[in-house]
């Protein structure tokens, strides 16, 4: 006879689980990965595989030998960190660097805080920023996109500038002249940059899927994009000679990737919709400030990390309103 299960109600549960959520995000990133392989060939694929494997291995080793706790390696969260990390680096980065980055991302970014759900910062971004600080040159030497049909799968990458890099170096005026900086190319991904961030279309495709499956909430990305658009728009209106049009800001750099896939990481971002909007606003403002006046050409990662740090505060400030409790009138 099988034994009955005694448990507290409810006795039915939704079919959602952590694993499914993680795998859905992974799936949503596949189009962007394919585009990346198209433009950056073997390098992109190699880097992605190494980074994912390194993240998963790190997590497994730590759980098995350091914590001696349950193994959660197949919940997909480590693989996701690996994928996002790879997406944020130049395709021609030396392999060992990405391994170091992965170890830092999982080891320091995640496991040091107690594993899944306990980390205050997005682990992939922790890894990325660590690499940016440790290997500044390698991390800012971006290969040029070159469709594999032209160059072949294993072709060596030619390095070239990213749009935001050009912008930082030469100012807004130069950008218009750089012939290959066409809007369409930008959207399709035919440009320099971290290989996951280049194709806005592929990323949006994934994002739409995630929103449809209710994995992510549209509030955060929307608020980020709007903030960036309005902020840079104001700058553009004031002085079109010095600043580029806001729509370029949306698709240049890692904004789309960051807004839809990293600022929506559940663990490190606020829970309520109001909180998410505030979070998005913060990310938008910091990103623009770094882009326009900071030392680095791109600021999405920093912006998200800074806002991650503020998340607990935001969560405290924006609690859902309790049923039947009248908010005390402000004095």
């Amino acid at each position, binding site marked *: 006879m099988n034994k009955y299960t005694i448990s507290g109600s409810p006795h039915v549960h939704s079919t959602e689980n952590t694993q499914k959520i993680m795998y859905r995000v992974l799936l949503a990133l596949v189009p962007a990965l394919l585009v990346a392989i198209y433009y950056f060939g073997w390098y992109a694929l190699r880097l992605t595989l190494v980074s994912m494997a390194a993240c998963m291995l790190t997590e497994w080793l730590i759980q098995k030998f350091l914590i001696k706790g349950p193994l959660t390696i197949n919940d997909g969260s480590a693989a996701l960190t690996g994928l996002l990390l790879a997406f944020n680096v130049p395709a021609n980065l030396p392999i060992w660097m990405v391994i170091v980055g992965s170890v830092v991302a999982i080891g320091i970014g995640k496991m040091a805080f107690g594993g899944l759900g306990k980390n205050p910062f997005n682990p992939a971004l922790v890894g990325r920023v660590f690499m940016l600080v440790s290997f500044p040159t390698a991390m800012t030497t971006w290969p040029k996109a070159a469709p594999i049909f032209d160059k072949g799968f294993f072709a060596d990458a030619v390095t070239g500038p990213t749009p935001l890099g050009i912008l930082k170096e030469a100012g807004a005026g130069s950008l218009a002249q750089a012939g290959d900086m066409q809007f369409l190319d930008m959207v399709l991904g035919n440009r320099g940059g971290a290989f996951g961030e280049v194709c806005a279309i592929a990323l949006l495709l994934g994002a739409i899927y995630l929103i449809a499956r209710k994995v992510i909430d549209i509030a955060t990305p929307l608020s980020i994009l709007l903030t960036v658009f309005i902020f840079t728009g104001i700058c553009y209106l004031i002085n079109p000679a010095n600043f580029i049009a806001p729509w370029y800001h949306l698709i240049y750099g890692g904004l789309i990737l960051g807004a839809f896939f990293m600022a929506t990481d559940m*663990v490190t971002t606020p*829970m309520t919709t109001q909180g998410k909007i505030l979070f998005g606003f913060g990310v938008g403002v910091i990103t623009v400030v770094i882009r326009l006046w900071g030392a680095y050409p791109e600021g999405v990662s920093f912006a998200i990390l800074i806002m991650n740090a503020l998340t607990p505060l935001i969560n405290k400030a924006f609690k859902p309103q309790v049923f039947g409790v009248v908010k005390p009138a402000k004095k």
Partner: protein
Amino acid sequence: MNPIKTFPRGGVHPEENKLSANQPIQDFPMPKQIIVPLGQCLGAPADCIVKKGDRVLTGQLIGTAKGFVSANVHSPATGTVAKVDVVMDHTGYYKPAVFIDREEQDEWVEGVIQTDELLTEIKLDSKQIIDRVKDCGIVGMGGATFPTHVKLMVPEGKKAEYIIINAAECEPYLTCDFRLLLEKTQEFLVGVKILMKAVNTDKGIIGIEENKMEAIELLEKTINAHRDLYKGIEVQPLKTKYPQGGEKQIIKAITGREVPSGKLPIETGCVVVNVASTYAIYEAVQKNKPLIERIVTVTGKSVKKPCNLRVRFGTPANLLIEAAGGLPENITDVINGGPMMGKSVSVTDFPCMKGTSGILLMTLDEAQDRRQTNCIRCGRCAKACPMGLQPFLLHKVAKLNDFDETEANHIMDCIECGSCEFTCPANIPLLDYIRYGKAKTGAIIRARNQK
């Protein structure tokens, strides 16, 4: 039809699985011996007033209410008291009960009208109605088993504006209220009238989820056909969303009023009564029949013949399972009530009681896998919570035994609906911890208030 309404915040939508919706109610024959538990309501168990060897008639009082929140218990059958002993109830605890060896023929106590004729004229006044409800041992039959007469006694200085009939039946699987609405429509409506008279109001609203269109239409048709008779009764369709049938939720959905935290629903001028209880009130007031039977839904995806049975209290549940085609294989969860708020049982031969709205048999697949991970702070629980609480936080602080924090975060407002645990992708037993925290916090608050 009125426009569909709903409560604004939170809620989930579990698979409805109303497998037995088309099964007419069948009378279930009583076994030779029935075991009537004395504690069938939320409050204290009744005091037994019969002893071994006594002959009892159907409908005869065998247990008297003890204390304010308590209800009378009547004999569901005619026969001899075999013993007054303990019986293992669904939780596996032993509770006092009266064992009755039944005679073939039902012999009712005096004064009960046994015909099926519809009696529409309400002869009793408000006070008499409430007394009758009390005498007949009527409780909230949705599962909470709170004595109904207590609800009907509107405290001094308060006014009941609405009688709200909770016909949402938002629990998946269960269909007992739905069938009752279809088959005893007129009786039910007279019951609503009685309730309106009891609390002196002329507005009665029946809230039904829109997945029970058939019942909505039938009720509206009946009301329209007898305009004068059912004046003041309205049918309000509600969105199919759990926990639409939560007392606070249904009031909010229908009237837009919010029961203040820590207060009773009467604060909003509403008295909410369940469908089965309304029918029982009709029987009690018009026919003088005490509460001795109810409709029980026996269901589950692997159950051969899901059905709705009219069962006298004290009938062991395993007989009902037999009637539904026997216990299917690989059942891992046997639940007394619905899947969202029912209770797991340890044994299947527990006696049916006033609160047994359903017997649900589930296999592991139906119940979903419950492998836990860490909380991923997705916030879904908070989004699903109809009370605007933060279940992940309550879980954490309850686990740490930090009862100041649980109180500050309104743990006492939790209605234990389970929406949070239902949605949690990390499969954390949130509600277990919240219940624990609630019990402890409640004890602390009570101790403080006593000082």
